[in-house]
């Protein structure tokens, strides 16, 4: 019952005219940027973070929620109309969706993706609202060592459980962790790894790193591939409305996708991709039209797209209740919270319930807005897809540097942007994943704090980390998530894992 009251209060906060406007701006910007080819949700959120700098925390987070959902939405449009398998969580949508668009059924494909995202977003956001209070209660019994174990688990799942190499995942993670040490130590005030450079004392900005790695690294990488001819955008022919048959074939996949996607997003398992792949596999097995799979089956769009959005909402469960980002997008959202001095976690629910519930409620509102906004405006989004590459990437770099200059107009910060951009490019060339660096940078200091607290309580006795049952179980799961994929890869079963690679989220 209490949840209901809180949610209702949250809706009252979110329904204030100014907040509605912020949500509307958020979803519009999020969709517009998310639609651009090559820009995933993580980069969308990082690029648009500066837009929210001058707002109050409440309004800014509400706009942020809109940007997050809008970015997820925009990505599916791109993958249906433009076959860009590089684009993170909607790879699976591209499998069937692009085939449908080529067969002239782009309209229904976009519609089932949009409505499926809406249904999944609605159920999953309500799920978030109802589960969050229980996890908060659970989190209150967590001590430093349980938190530390949880973070270790997140580190492992983000870096090495999926993707094509344990070595490269772990290397990315530890590069991020090494960068996280730079600056003044939070507990003793001593400067570490700053080499007497005053600008380094504040540490490395998460947003600078994320924008550099995702925007500049990606731009350099695309440019270095040379001209491979223009991508073909499929025109939307005919009606965008779904026929009765389309509805009949879509509603079950939407619900199944939601049920598969939400728990996967809510667990510290990282990435929306896993849910979309599982949903695709489930639909393929259950369908009555197996011959259509591979040639544009509507179930293959409806299910994964629902799973994608449900797990996007799911990742907010650990982020809001535990302060634990499990994807790069969530890591940047955490940076957004931190710029207002807010630390998500169980305490935020107690100290700032208005803000948290306003945020959850505005996710519901953003979801409605997206449904209303997307179907009629589809023609506009399609136009955005046809921007020629030179102008597109020139514009991306313009806005990437704009954000950094707006946050800190110094030559030094731009130098960092360039350096990390080159690092991001090199990592792409050699097949290193990017997300673990970002998650390592933001989660590193938090994990260190918990570890040192736990060890200070035990007076330096390391065994304390394993003697709490919860912490021990979490660490065992983390060890399994590290070792099992290693064995699978050694036995040549690695293809499945590399398909599940979470590169962008």
């Amino acid at each position, binding site marked *: 019952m209490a949840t209901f009251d809180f949610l209702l209060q949250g809706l009252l906060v979110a329904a204030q005219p100014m907040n509605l406007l912020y949500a509307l701006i958020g979803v519009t910007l999020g969709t517009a940027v998310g639609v651009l080819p090559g820009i995933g949700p993580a980069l969308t959120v990082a690029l648009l973070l500066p837009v929210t700098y001058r707002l109050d925390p409440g309004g800014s987070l509400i706009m942020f929620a809109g940007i997050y959902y809008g970015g997820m939405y925009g990505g599916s449009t791109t993958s249906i109309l433009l076959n860009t398998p590089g684009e993170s969580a909607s790879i699976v949508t591209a499998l069937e969706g692009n085939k449908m668009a080529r067969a002239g059924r782009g309209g229904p494909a976009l519609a089932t993706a949009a409505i499926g995202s809406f249904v999944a977003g609605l159920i999953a956001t309500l799920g978030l609202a109802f589960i969050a209070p229980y996890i908060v209660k659970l989190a209150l019994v967590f001590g430093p060592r349980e938190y530390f174990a949880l973070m270790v688990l997140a580190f492992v799942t983000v870096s090495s459980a999926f993707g094509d190499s344990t070595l490269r995942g*772990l290397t990315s993670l530890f590069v991020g962790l090494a960068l996280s040490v730079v600056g003044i130590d939070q507990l003793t005030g001593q400067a570490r790894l700053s080499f007497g450079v005053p600008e380094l004392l504040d540490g490395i900005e998460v947003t600078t790193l994320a924008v550099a790695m995702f925007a500049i690294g990606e731009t350099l990488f695309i440019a270095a591939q040379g001209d491979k001819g223009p991508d073909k955008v499929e025109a939307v022919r005919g009606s965008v409305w779904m026929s009765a048959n389309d509805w009949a074939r879509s509603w079950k996949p939407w619900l199944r996708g939601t049920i598969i996607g939400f728990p996967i997003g809510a667990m510290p398992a990282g990435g929306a991709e896993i849910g979309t792949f599982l949903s695709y596999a489930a639909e393929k097995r259950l369908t009555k039209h197996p011959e259509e799979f591979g040639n544009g089956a509507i179930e293959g769009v409806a299910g994964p797209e629902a799973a994608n959005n449900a797990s996007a909402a799911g990742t907010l469960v650990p982020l809001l209740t535990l302060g634990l980002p499990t994807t790069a997008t969530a890591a940047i959202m955490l940076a957004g919270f931190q710029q207002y001095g807010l630390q998500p976690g169980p305490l935020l629910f107690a100290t700032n319930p208005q803000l948290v519930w306003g945020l959850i409620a505005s996710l519901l509102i953003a979801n409605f807005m997206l449904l209303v906004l997307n179907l009629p405006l589809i023609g506009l989004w399609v136009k955005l897809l046809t921007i020629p590459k030179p102008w597109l990437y020139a514009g991306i770099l313009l806005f990437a540097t704009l954000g950094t200059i707006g946050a800190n107009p110094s030559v030094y910060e731009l130098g960092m942007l360039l350096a990390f951009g080159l690092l991001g490019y090199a990592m792409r060339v050699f097949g290193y994943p990017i997300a673990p660096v970002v998650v390592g940078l933001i989660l590193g200091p938090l994990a260190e704090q918990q570890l040192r607290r736990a060890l200070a309580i035990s007076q330096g006795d390391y065994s304390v980390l394993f003697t709490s049952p919860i912490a021990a179980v979490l660490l065992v799961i983390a060890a399994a998530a590290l070792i099992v994929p290693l064995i699978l890869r050694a036995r040549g079963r690695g293809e499945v894992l590399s398909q599940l690679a979470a590169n962008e989220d």
Partner: protein
Amino acid sequence: MTKGHHPSTATRRPDRAALFIAVVLGAIAGLIFWDVSRLAGAAGYSQVGPTTVPYAIACCLLALAIWTGFEAFRGDFPERERQEVAPVIWIVGGLAAQMLLLKVAGFSIATGILFALTARGFGKRKLWFSLPVGIVLCFVVWVIFAKLLQLSLPAGPLERLFF
């Protein structure tokens, strides 16, 4: 991903780029050891201080460097696609120019140059066209963000001409 399991190339020639990565990882670990050793003695009564975690990270990086070196010798790294160097240089040049000119020339001109050079990297050769377009676009962006959203973007001669 095609892994280098061709016995002739994999066993004879170690992957030099991957070896270089291993060396860099080792160097970062060494840098952390060197820097943190200055802080030694600051650990409190619990023997856990600001040095504990950096040491742990450096040890892991060292282990990863050895592992990378091992894979480099076995040729386990994925094959890399050929990279065009020229576009990368154009774009990096654009970013460097923006960085150096920002304070002197202001946001619009510096970022306009970045815009034009990035477009050049992607094959738009007509700088006489893309440069003015970039500068005008950046000026519009400057007006929106600096004047309406109050972001502090450095002004230069062009911005002072109008405001």
